[in-house]
Structures are given as structure tokens and as C-alpha cells.
């Protein structure tokens, strides 16, 4: 176990949660709520499912508080739970729906509408179109590559952390990322 003096802030908070401090849990939730939900949204492409899975992530953290030991970085643990839940959800859904196409997903309203945020109608349409192209390009990646890109690009996680989340080596993560970005470069070349 790490020395308490060198513990990261999240681990300190989690140890307090273990002792029954609910305010520390609220702080952890405040720090990680958005990154976890955003990661899950980009993984499953559905906001309500992402929030439901995120609830499960934090419930598991809360449920495990009594046995918590700061043996790994807190965010690694958090994203490992999140990515397992997302990958399981994707696998189950694919199994249920028999590998339906992305077009079908769009038709089913699985994609959120891009909010206008004060843009003109034209700007909103351009933005929505770009969003949709990127969504499709990312969605088309193999699941592990997708998870790696989302953690690398949007959560700014280190290679070692991504490797710990995906339970593979750092060199495997680099390879996954390089292949993923090559695919994205090919698919989104016209946007560059």
C-alpha cells in the first residue's frame, strides 16, 4: 500500500469515504461525474444509457468502499469499471440486435441532437454534420481502439493508465492508438 503522504487526492477522498465520510464521496462525484459520463456517452452513443451506466459506475465505487485500497490510481479504477460496463453493454446490445448497421442506429434515434448553443441555423447544421461524421468514424473503430482513443483524446489519460484500464501493455496501447488514428485520418481526411 502506498504511503498516505504520497496518496493522490482522489485516493485520499476514497479512504475517507471508506471511513463513512459522505462529503468526500460528493467531492469525488463532482470531480469525476462529467468525464465518466462523457466517456460513456462517446462509447455507447446514447446519453440516457451513458448516465445509467455512470450511475452503476459510482454505485460500484460506493459499494466497494469498505474494501478499498489505494493500490492503483483512482481514475484508472474508475475508468476500468466504466469501460467494462460500456463494452458489456455494447456486446449485449450487438448480440440482441444481430449486428445491425450504424444507419439503423441513427434511424432509431440513438444519437443525440447537437444543441445549437447560440449558433446560427447554418452554423448548427455544419456543426451537426461534422459531429455526425466524427461519430460514425469513431463508432466504426473496433471497441478497444475506440476506448483507447476516447481516453487518450478526450480524457487526456497517460498510456500507462489506458493500458491499466484496458488490461494490456503500454506498447499494445500505442499500437492500438496508432492504428485507430490512421483509420480516423483515412475516414476523416476530407474534413482536414
Amino acid at each position, binding site marked *: 500500500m502506498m504511503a498516505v503522504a504520497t496518496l493522490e487526492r482522489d485516493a485520499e477522498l476514497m479512504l475517507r469515504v471508506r471511513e463513512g465520510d459522505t462529503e468526500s464521496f460528493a467531492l469525488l*462525484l463532482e470531480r469525476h*461525474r*462529467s468525464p465518466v*459520463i*462523457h466517456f460513456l*456517452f*462517446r462509447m455507447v452513443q446514447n*446519453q440516457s444509457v451513458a*448516465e445509467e451506466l*455512470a*450511475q452503476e459506475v*459510482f*454505485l*460500484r465505487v*460506493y*459499494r*466497494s468502499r469498505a474494501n478499498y485500497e489505494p493500490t492503483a490510481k483512482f481514475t484508472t479504477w474508475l475508468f476500468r469499471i466504466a469501460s*467494462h460496463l460500456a463494452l*458489456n453493454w455494447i456486446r449485449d446490445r450487438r448480440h440482441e440486435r444481430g449486428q445491425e448497421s450504424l444507419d439503423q442506429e441513427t434511424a432509431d434515434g440513438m444519437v*443525440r441532437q447537437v*444543441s445549437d448553443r447560440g449558433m446560427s441555423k447554418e452554423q448548427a447544421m455544419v*456543426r451537426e454534420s*461534422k*459531429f455526425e461524421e*466524427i*461519430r460514425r468514424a*469513431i463508432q466504426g473503430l473496433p471497441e478497444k481502439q475506440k476506448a483507447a482513443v476516447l481516453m*487518450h*483524446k*478526450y480524457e*487526456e*489519460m*497517460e*498510456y*500507462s493508465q489506458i493500458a491499466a484500464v484496458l488490461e494490456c501493455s*503500454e506498447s499494445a496501447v*500505442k499500437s492500438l*492508438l*496508432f492504428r485507430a*488514428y490512421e483509420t*480516423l*485520418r483515412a475516414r*476523416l*481526411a476530407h*474534413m*482536414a
Partner: protein
Amino acid sequence: MQNTSFHNTNFPDSRMTCPLQTGNEDVLLDYCARALDAERKSMLEAHMAHCEQCREMAKAQTEIWAALDAYDAEPVSADFDRKLYARMEEMDRVPAWEKYWAPVREYLQGQPAWKPVLSVAAASAVLMVVFAVSGDGPQPLPAPVALIDVQDVEQAERALEDIEMLRQFESASAESAQKDVL
């Protein structure tokens, strides 16, 4: 930000080896993600000044990196925390045994390979209970029975009858020969 994991061994001197030719493509990714420190960044830029392949790749990757920014996420629902705390309270109310069983159940639910094994194990357990209650375990196989060939028996009986007839015939012949002599 990102761990560059790119050591000075890749740069034995001020002239770096080509990342694309030495399997260090992550250096270019880090460059586009602005995760390289000043020294490494300047060394890579010096290399790219005469390596068209790296220059082109870095340019394309930087553009894609920027394009991916458009994939933003939705704001989180206002009642997310309220729902979560309600579920946490509910969880605190469940019996102690359920708290221990729930993670096991979740694990098993996420392991499809276990499902058939569990089904077989459950079926075996039910069968064992049924046998134990009824007292009739599986019946032992009957002892092997010696099979006698019926044709062999009939043939033997016919042979004995033939011998007996022959013996009676010989006996009768001997008596008539004695009478002739007398």
C-alpha cells in the same frame, strides 16, 4: 498530460532517428496532442524539417486531432446526483447477505461462459437431490448372462439318439446271428 514514454535513447544525439521507421509513432501522436516537452518537440521539428513522411503525418494527425474536438458531449442531466443518492440509500437498506451476493451476481452476469456451466451444475444438483430423497440411486447393471447356442444343443441330442439307435441295431443283429448258429 500524456506520458510521452519516449526516452532519450530514441535521441542519442541532436539528430533523431525517424519515429516512423523505428516504431515510435507515439512521438508523433504526442506532438499532435501537444504532449511533448520543449526539448523533444524541437528535436522532432528538426527531424521533420528533412523528413517529408513524418511532416505529412504530423500535419494530417494535427488536423484530425482538431477535427475530433467537434465531437463534444451532452451536458449531464440535472437530476443525475439525486437519482444516484436515492439508489445509494436504497442499497444501504438491503440485507447484508445481498451486499455480498450482488457483486458475485454482477460478475457472473458479465461472464457468458459461466452461464452454461451454471445451468449444468444446477441440473446436476437437482438430480442428486432427487436420488438422495427417493433412495433409488441408479440401478446396477445386471450380471452378464452366458448365452448358449440352441443349435448346438439340438445337434448334440440328435447325435446321442443316432448312437443309441446304432447300438440297438447292432445288438439286434448279434441276437439273430446267434439264433442262426444254434
